[in-house]
């Protein structure tokens, strides 16, 4: 018996030795406040912090002007601000500017710099920084500027407190673009250690693991309620529900109804709109989707409402073009039912296009987004009914971004496309034939011409009409199989409150707080 005890002791000793050895290797990643991260949800309430789950790692660079992925912009919304910023109602309010005026002909914009705005590094925001930030996004010396719409600027004048921007033509949407992040002019570490003016400041990032933000105490406006927010990356959609149930995560947006239904009393499920155009995006440059009839056949073959009912328990708004209902001004309702569900018509069109027996296609889906995977699964079944054999190819988010989005090596893909700011242009410009982010290779001269007219449109009404024409063009030519604007089901741990939804794809954490 004694020997056994000895063996046990020895084993324990070995184990602890092994652990110290292992632990030693990773001490460097332990941040100073590693203690608090270990607590359960209750402990986090004590320290006024939360853990937010996100489905993907952020872009490799955190520089807000270079961010591509909607998921990156969603998170960094808390760190950066522009001269103006959006509100949950869809308005723009002054942020780094304290106010602005627009000339009656909408060509001259005058901003007054807000006094006492500090960057997260402690430096005051000066006019020089603002001008630098705008010019950086407007710079076209290396091809297309970061924000193409800024090429409308003909002149920028500034003194210490006022900034005057003159446009070549009037543009009622121009103000939306000045939500672009104001960055310090003399700082070159934005890629890895971003510095902005938002309510939260960036603390650290561990690739593939987490991003930590802390409340910025010297924020010019209403300070954030929470002291600390940790974004934890959970790429494995299957273990997500477990992590929520176990108490590892306090907030997760973009859940499926199946996931949400499992959460029980620990969570409140908030419902908003995702503000994405979810579609089966078709590569218009490859066979058979280069044939318009095939694309239209697909549109007839897909029953949007059934997708919403089956995969999302009825939550979600069907759409018919690259516009979602939150943009009331631009949303064209009758396009939604332009292609009613009609499998027979679909088969006729396929036969006309030379595919009487259907064909085989691949649907690429990023494996970390359960809503898109579920949608694709229903699509496969619906397409089967008209003789099309669709195969789902699940890929890592990084692969999707590189191969599907950037290199356009795909047949079709189910994703959601967001608007980077509250303009119709943000959704529609990408389908002009020369746009760098036209990943579906849509090429239609009428569409390009319409977009050219938008640039010189006399007034806002004319512009709106033109945008609607562009949406109609996309629908008529069946650029993609439009499905829905997903319902955004957000799981928020019971005891937390104050989350607000926006008409764009962002997650504002500044108002989230523990209920007293």
């Amino acid at each position, binding site marked *: 018996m004694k020997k056994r005890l000895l063996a046990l002791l020895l084993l324990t000793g070995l184990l602890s030795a092994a652990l110290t050895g292992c632990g030693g290797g990773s001490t460097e990643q332990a941040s100073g406040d590693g203690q608090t991260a270990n607590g359960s949800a209750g402990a986090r309430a004590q320290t006024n912090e939360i853990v937010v789950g996100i489905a993907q790692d952020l872009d490799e660079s955190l520089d807000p002007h270079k961010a591509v992925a909607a998921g990156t912009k969603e998170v960094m919304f808390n760190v950066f601000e522009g001269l103006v910023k959006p509100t949950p109602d869809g308005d723009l309010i002054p942020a780094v500017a304290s106010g602005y005026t627009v000339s009656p002909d909408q060509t001259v914009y005058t901003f007054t710099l807000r006094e006492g705005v500090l960057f997260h590094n402690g430096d005051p925001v000066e006019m020089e920084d603002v001008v630098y930030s705008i010019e950086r996004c407007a710079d076209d010396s290396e091809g297309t500027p970061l924000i193409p719409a800024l090429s409308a600027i003909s002149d920028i004048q500034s003194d210490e407190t006022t900034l005057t921007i003159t446009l070549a033509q009037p543009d009622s949407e121009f103000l939306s673009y000045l939500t672009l992040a104001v960055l310090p002019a003399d700082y070159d570490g934005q890629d890895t250690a971003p510095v902005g003016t938002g309510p939260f400041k960036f603390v650290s990032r561990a690739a593939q693991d987490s991003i930590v933000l802390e409340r910025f105490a010297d924020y010019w406006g209403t300070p954030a309620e929470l002291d600390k927010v940790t974004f934890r990356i959970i790429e494995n959609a299957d273990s997500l529900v477990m992590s929520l149930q176990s108490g590892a995560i306090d907030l997760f947006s973009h859940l499926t109804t199946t996931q949400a239904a*499992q959460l029980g009393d620990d969570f409140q499920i908030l419902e908003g709109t995702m503000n994405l155009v979810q579609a089966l995006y078709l590569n218009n440059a490859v066979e058979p989707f280069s044939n318009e009839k095939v694309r239209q056949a697909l549109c007839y073959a897909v029953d949007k409402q059934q997708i919403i009912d089956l995969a999302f328990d009825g939550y979600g708004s069907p759409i018919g073009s690259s516009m979602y209902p939150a943009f009331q001004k631009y949303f064209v309702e009758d396009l939604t039912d332009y292609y009613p569900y009609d499998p027979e018509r679909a088969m006729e069109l396929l036969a006309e296009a030379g595919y009487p027996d259907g064909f085989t296609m691949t649907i690429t889906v990023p494996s970390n987004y359960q809503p898109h995977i579920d949608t694709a699964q229903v699509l496969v079944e619906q397409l089967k009914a008209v003789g099309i054999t669709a195969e789902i190819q699940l890929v890592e988010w990084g692969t999707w971004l590189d191969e599907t989005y950037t290199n356009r090596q795909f047949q079709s893909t189910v994703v959601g496309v967001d608007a980077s700011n509250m303009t119709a242009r943000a959704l529609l410009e990408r389908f002009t034939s020369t746009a760098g982010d036209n990943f579906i290779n849509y090429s239609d001269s009428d569409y390009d011409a319409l977009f050219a007219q938008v640039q010189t449109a006399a007034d806002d009404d004319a512009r709106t009409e033109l945008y609607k024409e562009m949406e109609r063009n996309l629908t008529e030519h069946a650029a993609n199989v439009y499905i829905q604007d997903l319902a955004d089901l957000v799981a928020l741990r019971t005891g937390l409150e104050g989350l607000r939804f926006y008409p764009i794809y962002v997650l504002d954490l500044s108002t989230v707080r523990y209920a007293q």
Partner: protein
Amino acid sequence: MRRKSMNGYLLAGLVLTGALTALILLGLVWTPYDPDAMLAGPKLQGPTLAHLLGTDSFGRDIFSRVLRGAGTTFLIALSTVAIGAVCGTAAGALTGYFGGVVDEALMRLNDALTAFPSILLALVVLSILGPGNKYNVVIALGIVFIPSFARVTRAAFASLRDVNYVKSARLMGASSGRILVRQILPNTVQVLLPALTIGFNNAVLAEASMSYLGIGVTPPDASLGYMLSEAQGMLTSAPWYALGTGGAIVLLIFGVGLMGEGLQRRGGEVA
């Protein structure tokens, strides 16, 4: 030496595996519902007579899905073992029988390969061939299983090289090929059969693991591994999905494992 006839383990294993194989074969041609058909029943329903394992979040019949998933897993494991056994036995026979430098070199290579965890090696091969394709999974796993079969058969062939009946066959002028196939091969069945059962089980496990990770077989060829990962996402609302899928893997391996146990006991203790 124990009795050379049947034993309880072999019998139980044969019955269980036979029943499962019959079910799986049936599943290849007929399932109660189309495994992919949505709304085959109400969503997320528990087990009933109409749906033996209930339904998932799309209202698909889980029993039909498990049956088809088991079929995929079963076929992949079979093809994998076939590749491994044929190539491995050939390699083992040649090197074991002829010996020499090639034998030395191959055995060293073999040793080095055992340092590679089998799934890891399969993952490496798969990453080169391209993940997410069932044929690549079969090739990757097949390659991985060659060394273990080679090792087993090599020993058998080397030991049988100099037994009397082989020597006499050689003296009578039989060609090497004839000796290998006609004289020695039938006598290696004793060691080959248990190796086949172990290989099959390893193949089922490896395929399920890779598909669980999402780099093995992906939809529409859902295998048990992928389905278990899917089931994990609805564990609380449809636990019978995870249990049914996991249970199917366990039963499949358990049956063949019992057969292997029985075979080994029949052939004496082959540790």
